[in-house]
């Protein structure tokens, strides 16, 4: 696999959220605004890239890998938990409003299946550079997916899109135009499942159409 393929596979082909359906708990919980989604994405990017790099470095050394193999899951957890705690402390100190919005979902990055999954399935058996590229691609794919859900939910639920801090795009005019109020349910937990289901259905439909087109092209 080339470096480019390694980087890009996480964005669409193996998107952790829309294809593998991993890491759903934080995705549904924090996608009430685009700002929260981007904040969570940044946290996951840092943790995923660094954990992939560290685990790959450890496992690239044959002698060390032999020693670590029997205790590899505790080793992954220690590395990931350390990185998540660093993210939590830095966010608490320098991004307090984001820290308060994300709340308990920052420490829960430790048990995000995407991070542990990539450590075991990819970083432990690939070179450090490949692992870093895989981490960047997967984290960007996760961020893009969670951002799409957040935009969908925030627009329908509040009629706004909070990009960052005070930068809020007000789209309430669209609701005024059709004569209804924003549908508050979309920023509630039930709205999270509904939004995710609708977006996933759309992604699968687009994927199927594409496959059909490719199959037709091959038949001709």
């Amino acid at each position, binding site marked *: 696999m080339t470096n480019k393929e390694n980087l890009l596979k996480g964005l669409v082909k193996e998107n952790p959220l829309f294809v593998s359906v991993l890491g759903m708990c934080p995705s549904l919980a924090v996608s009430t605004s685009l700002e929260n989604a981007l904040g969570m994405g940044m946290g996951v990017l840092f943790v995923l890239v660094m954990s992939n790099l560290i685990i790959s470095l450890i496992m690239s050394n044959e002698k*060390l890998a032999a*020693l*670590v*193999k*029997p*205790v590899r899951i*505790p*080793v992954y957890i*220690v*590395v990931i*938990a*350390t990185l998540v*705690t*660093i993210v939590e*402390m*830095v966010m*608490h*100190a*320098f991004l*307090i409003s984001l820290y308060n919005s994300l709340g308990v979902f920052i420490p829960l990055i430790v048990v995000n299946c995407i991070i542990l999954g990539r450590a075991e399935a990819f970083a432990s058996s690939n070179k450090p550079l490949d692992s870093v590229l895989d981490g960047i691609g997967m984290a960007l794919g996760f961020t893009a997916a969670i951002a799409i859900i957040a935009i969908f939910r925030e627009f329908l639920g509040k009629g706004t899109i909070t990009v960052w801090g005070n930068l809020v795009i007000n789209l309430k005019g669209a609701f005024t135009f059709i004569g209804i109020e924003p549908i508050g349910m979309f920023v509630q937990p039930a709205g999270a499942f509904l939004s995710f289901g609708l977006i996933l259905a759309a992604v699968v439909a687009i994927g199927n159409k594409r496959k059909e087109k490719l199959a037709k092209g091959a038949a001709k």
Partner: protein
Amino acid sequence: MNSGLKSGLVLLVLGIVCGTLLALVNSFTAPVIAEIEEAAQYDALKEFYYDIEDPNYENFVITSDYDIDKLEINEDGVEGIFVIKDKGSDIIDSLGYLVYANGYSGDAPVLMLIIVEEDMDVIGYKVVSHKETTGFGADIVDNDFNVSSLIDLSGFDGVAGTTLTSNAILECFNIVAGRAGDDFGGGLDD
């Protein structure tokens, strides 16, 4: 050496390295976090000394109108006391108590700011931090608990279904009621 023992040692070394790294990061984030928490407490104080509806509210700095000393206490449920005096005056205008009591989330107590005057009238109160359950206890922390004086707390309005959180808040008022008289009477000088 037994290979299991060697693996355990590797894990131990990794734990030490990670612990050291966390201590290093903590050494430069902890002071910033402490500053933020103190600023949040001063912001909470500001709400009771300036009209929140006023357009200049954001620019109002409470220390420009009042002299405020914070006493670190950390005993009997009291974390600290803000001694608030009019600018340049020696007479205490009011005392702001940072008090805590255990609610539903036992490990993280409910921390309240309660501001009282010498006649035991309550100027205001606010839950500064808590980790009560979202959808239950967390929803009542901004309630009006019908407390305007510490002389008689029998009118306290608890909320059914969130007994432990309500009790923690009542306990905070009781702590202040138990010591505010002494503190205004010179107890703080000790």
